[in-house]
């Protein structure tokens, strides 16, 4: 079924690579959360290859800036870093 969606083994590998890239970025962000909160409090941080490439208080503004600078942002993980707990009521 996956091959039917993706069309070729190369594209399937592209998906696996995307999973791995985001998993590594998220893991890196979580393990450096205290430092990130200290540097970029209440902000959205953009992580690529385990490195903060941009940050902004506004998610929409950050996305626009990322697109302007990088074009393709599909391998960039965006994390909200704050020490203020946010409750979700969905």
């Amino acid at each position, binding site marked *: 079924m996956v091959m039917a969606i993706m069309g070729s083994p190369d594209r399937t590998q592209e998906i696996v690579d995307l999973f791995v890239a985001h998993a590594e970025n998220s893991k890196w962000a979580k393990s450096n959360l205290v430092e990130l909160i200290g540097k970029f409090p209440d902000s959205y941080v953009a992580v690529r290859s385990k490195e903060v490439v941009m940050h902004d208080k506004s998610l929409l503004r950050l996305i626009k800036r990322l697109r302007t600078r990088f074009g393709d942002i599909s391998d960039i993980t965006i994390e*909200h870093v704050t020490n203020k707990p946010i409750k979700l009521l969905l």
Partner: protein
Amino acid sequence: MCSRGEAAQVKIRSYIDRDSGHCYLEAILVTDKLPKPERLLLLIDTGAGTTTILDGDCARLGLDCKRLPKNRTPTMVVGGLIDAHMLTDVAFLFRDTDGNLQAEFLKAIEVIDPAQGGPRPSFSIMGVDLLRRFKRFVVDYENDEAFLER
């Protein structure tokens, strides 16, 4: 090893937020409305009927809501009713614990337009329409593990 006639169990690991207890899942969205597959972080929400791309992800993916049809039925959220857009014929890809990709199709999901204001979460919602495609959703808070199984 499986006994005869018994299919191997597929497990997809979910991430538990230690502070909130919410469960999240990594997924790749495939749709002809996007030039390439895109990663989504999905909050597993048993209270949501429909899988929904929230406004923050809508902006990040560059989905143009003006080109998407509106759902005929308003969506009730906390705070009132909103008019969600629809994204049709989508596929979600997940990575199982063996490293293989697993796919699920949905005829339609909803998309919240960033223009509608509100908070900008950097995740989207996995509703019951997608969750029920799996046999089991197991959450083990004691061992900090959660899985979707099929």
